[in-house]
């Protein structure tokens, strides 16, 4: 009765030692690859949501993301992210009327200065041209749902939405 279970135990232990040897060469990479294939994505509150469309401006582009809505008890407001890129093609002062929902009418006017020093803090003013969008005055980066930040070669502005 004891013999087969004992043999199984030692076999499993031996396989565990072999598995340990395979971790850096096979298992770790295999599991990591499997993880990437699960189809998971980082929460849009961080990533900003998928791209909806891109507008070509004067030497630079404005990428408009799909609106992001908070989950369950998330304390942030719904928002839409707009990306200005590349930073070195932007004028010293940007003031763009942006058609966010693609209906041919501008929805918000976004204004900010582009300092030469990338470490300088940014401030954004947003005028809401439609009631769906929330105006912002001299906003920095206090919340994920209302901010302006520079990420590498892009300036991101998140405009909060009034209602869902």
């Amino acid at each position, binding site marked *: 009765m*004891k013999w087969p*279970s*004992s*043999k*199984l*135990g*030692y076999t*499993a*232990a*031996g396989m*565990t*030692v072999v*598995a*340990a*040897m395979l*971790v*850096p060469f096979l*298992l*770790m*990479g*295999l*599991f*990591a*690859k*499997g*993880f*990437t294939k*699960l*189809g*998971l*994505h*980082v*929460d*849009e*509150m*961080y*990533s*900003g949501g998928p791209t909806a469309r891109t507008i070509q401006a004067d030497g630079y582009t404005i990428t408009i993301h799909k609106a992001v809505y*908070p*989950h*369950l*008890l*998330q*304390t942030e407001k719904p928002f839409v992210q707009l990306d200005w890129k590349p930073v070195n093609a932007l004028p010293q002062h940007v003031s763009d009327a942006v058609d966010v929902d693609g209906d041919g009418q501008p929805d918000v006017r976004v204004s900010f200065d582009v300092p030469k020093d990338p470490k300088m803090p940014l401030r954004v003013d947003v005028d809401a041209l439609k009631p769906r969008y929330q105006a912002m005055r001299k906003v920095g*980066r*206090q*919340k*994920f749902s209302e*901010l302006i*930040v*520079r*990420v*590498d070669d892009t300036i*991101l502005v998140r405009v909060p939405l009034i209602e869902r």
Partner: protein
Amino acid sequence: MADAVCAGFAGKTSPRTWSRALLLTLPIALWSLFMAMRGLLQPDRSLQVASGVTAAFMIVLFFMMMKTSSTYRWRRWFFVALGVLFPIEFIHNVMVLRGSMGIPIEEMIAGRTPFCFLPIPLLILPAALTRTLVFPGSILPRGGMSGGGMAAMAGLWLAVTLVVGKGWCSYACFFGGIEEGMAALPKKAKWKKLDPRYRLLPWAVLLAMVLLSLALFEPAYCMWLCPFKAVSEYVAARNTVGLVQNGIFVVLFAALVIVLPLLTKKRTQCTFLCPFGAFQSIFNKTSVFDIKIDRTVCSPCVLCQKSCPTMSLSDESIKKGETLMSCMKCGACVDACPKGAAVWHIRGTQVAVKPERARLMFLYAAWAMAAMFGGSIITQGLATILQRVI
């Protein structure tokens, strides 16, 4: 395998001869040198030296485990080195890359928050229900701040867990070493009476943090309770809430990682708080290795219970001849038992029959992981110091 019986006590083995200990160390020596090759072949002199020193360190410790048949005290040297050198290397890295231990919001948006293993259990429910990872990092294996994306850490964690189960907390966790070092400092514990119900706290924290993470869609433990934020990184305080969060990290670190281990000689953060440790306990059920108490030779002196750094032995469990689910296979109880009743064991085999074989097989697997993962962290930490000093 050596199963020499010492003084009539079933599970206690006598010290080995030098030659036999060397022979048993040989596989790990080769493995450690192989793991060190990447650093040794680098042009950076400090990395070469650090790699060589780390390999030698891992080999000597394993040799001493083989020579003395004692596990815990030698493993502790590795674990403390890991716990001390990880923050040095990590803080140095973040200071060089971003000039602050605080993660600015743009780094989170860019998905460059380094991902450690602690939030893994918190991510499972949101991921299962909405396919969303509630962590501001990168999924890609080479994403994140220093190439440590979530996939890389998840892959590493799964692989190591497959091999050592809850042994992760003794051979791979790069946080526990600080408190283990603190717990080793005093000769005797000042606080000896600890309510055994406290050991349920990590489960309560795990449940609360899993539910909170699902409700708030954020890694709640990282945001509010992780003591190791104090020695790694934290969300840069943008408002009063951020200041409160950072205050909590410092207080928890001081209390659970510094003061209480000094007073109790226990790993108090692991025992009373860590939700990852509680989660990892589940994998004790899947691991082929465990620790048993041989009831035929045990005269309940409870030295094993006293020596356990995570209170993973209770009166009831000793009566049943086993450890609790939270046992992290550090070997403290086996080393402490004067009668050799606490023994390493392979599931399916008879208790106290060839326990040294079980110990050897476990240590080969666990030390291979330690040399691979912990060894690389120790190397980086040493190299960082050498770069500064030399």
